[in-house]
């Protein structure tokens, strides 16, 4: 095996890890919302985009420190999450059609608001870190390492939150059996709000990071949206651990498929791989089977 091939493989493994961490970060929030409130939040991608834009505007137009900007955008999106839960999701709980309509409304407004308000220039959040370092034979930029580290760090935090804190355990209870949780006297609205906040905050983090790694534009959320749905279904409805494996699988596919096939075929192959997996395991890799 030639030097080039080895480098290619190692580099791709690193890519897979980095991508996975980003996907899991986004998928987690989305899955929370679905498991806890039964909501398919089609606006998740747009929330990610808005998070990126808040960070970008603060950091490059206003000119404050990017880290501070990221913090502000996280807080802002967290608050936005509370509003979202109270005024958008709660009134329509249990009716997926209405939720879809309201999500489309939000998407349309936010996307077009951004694309109308922003003049056409290349828009990019200033880098959080710079420089390159070598790992063995391949070299990696600190920027991407940072994305990976923040991703993993937040995942660990979220896991601790779910498994150790009272709210976290309540969250899992609600995710598994809502009626039961209500009977136990858990305040489902509070838990839902919490889930929304977490989802939006995580999306904001991912957005800010990707905004400095790629560029920001009003349509950056569309592709992410599909990835997130893949992760939800692949991981399995109602399971939180499933997200990690699903995210890993999607990341690996995204990192390795482009090397063998061309761009759009990657997407097609991935989709059909998932469809086939679901044909054999309809409840997802970690979901509980529900038979009629």
């Amino acid at each position, binding site marked *: 095996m030639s030097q080039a091939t080895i480098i290619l493989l190692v580099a791709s493994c690193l890519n897979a890890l980095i991508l996975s961490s980003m996907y899991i970060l986004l998928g987690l929030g989305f899955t929370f919302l679905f498991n806890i409130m039964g909501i398919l939040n089609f606006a998740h991608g747009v929330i990610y985009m808005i998070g990126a834009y808040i960070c970008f505007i603060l950091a490059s137009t206003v000119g404050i420190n990017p880290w501070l900007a990221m913090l502000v955008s996280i807080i802002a999106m967290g608050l936005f999450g509370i509003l979202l839960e109270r005024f958008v999701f709660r009134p329509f709980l249990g009716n997926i059609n*209405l939720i879809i309509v309201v999500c489309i409304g939000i998407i349309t407004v936010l996307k077009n608001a951004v694309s109308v308000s922003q003049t056409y220039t290349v828009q990019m959040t200033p880098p959080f870190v710079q420089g390159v370092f070598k790992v063995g034979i391949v070299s990696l930029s600190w920027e991407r390492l940072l994305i990976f580290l923040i991703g993993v760090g937040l995942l660990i935090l979220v896991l601790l939150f779910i498994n150790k804190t009272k709210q976290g355990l309540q969250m899992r209870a609600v995710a598994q059996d809502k009626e039961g949780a209500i009977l136990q006297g858990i305040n489902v609205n509070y838990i839902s709000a919490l889930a929304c906040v977490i989802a939006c905050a995580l999306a904001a983090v991912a957005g800010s990071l990707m905004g400095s790694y790629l560029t920001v534009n009003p349509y950056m959320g569309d592709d992410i949206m599909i990835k997130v749905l893949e992760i939800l279904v692949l991981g399995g409805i109602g399971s939180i651990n499933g997200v990690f494996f699903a995210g890993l699988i999607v990341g690996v596919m995204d990192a390795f498929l482009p090397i063998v096939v061309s761009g*759009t075929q990657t997407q097609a192959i991935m989709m059909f791989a998932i469809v086939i997996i679901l044909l054999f395991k309809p409840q997802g890799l970690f979901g509980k089977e529900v*038979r*009629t």
Partner: protein
Amino acid sequence: MGLMITVRDTASRRKNYIQIIICGILICFLAIVPLLTNSPYNLHIFILTLIYIIAAASMRFIMTSGQIPLAHGAFLGLGAYVSGILSKHFGISSWLTLLVAALVAMGVGTFISFPFARLKAFYYSMISLFFGVGMLQTIESFGKLTGGITGITGIPTLFHTASKVPFYYCFLALMLISLFILYRLEVSRIGWNLKAIEQSYLVAGSVGISVVQYRVLAVAIGCFFAGLAGGMYATYNVTISPSSFDMAATLWLIIYVTIGGMGNFAGPIIGTLVLFLLPQYYSGLKQYTPFISAAILFAVLYTFRDGLVSVPGLVVSFYKKRKKGRSKS
């Protein structure tokens, strides 16, 4: 008229006559639209509306069985591409390709829905969503045949005339036939069984309704008409591209159904008409048009959540209440 008519008393039979008369008037009106508007562009909009009414109505038919077909836009696309490719690259008559498109969509829909019909309806929605996106990605990645993201242009049309009037009447006829079939299905026992399954598949099973059979049937019929609409779109619009059959397209179909009103057969028709024709008033606003559309969505959503069809009912009950109030005082 199946279950409903058998339990009809004379009063509701009169209502039935009224319905027929109203529909008659409407059809007559639609028949003279080309005389009312002399701009080909307006006719173009009306023709698209006819096509999307079929799509939305067929989507609602699937939804009555409790399944949400998140690939309906993609099935539209499947129909469009099948008919487009067949008629452009293989020179098959457009009339034939319409039928083929519908049948292909039907077949694929059945194939996809079958493994999931025995599971919770939600799983079908998910798989269909993925299948939909995957199908478009495939279309995009076979550039030679489908023109990739660009799409196909120069598809042979049904009528080789510059005028759009023949298209209008032809598609009006197709729409009326499709709607008639869907309506008959809905009011017959088939439609009622679908509604029964939607309400409780356990009870439905316990009285001998085959849940799997009926769910697949619903999807098959829905996809058939989706494919038909897609074929019509391709052969009328002569250009098709994946981006107009993507997830957003499906979600917009759901919006037509929901804004119009899920509970009533007229729902998708009203919804499509409103959301298709209304934007023509403010299309002058260019890049600001989406905001108006969103505003309309929110307005309807937060005022009458059962859709526009519920408005008359609400009005009637409101006046009844006021009458009561008066008679008391």
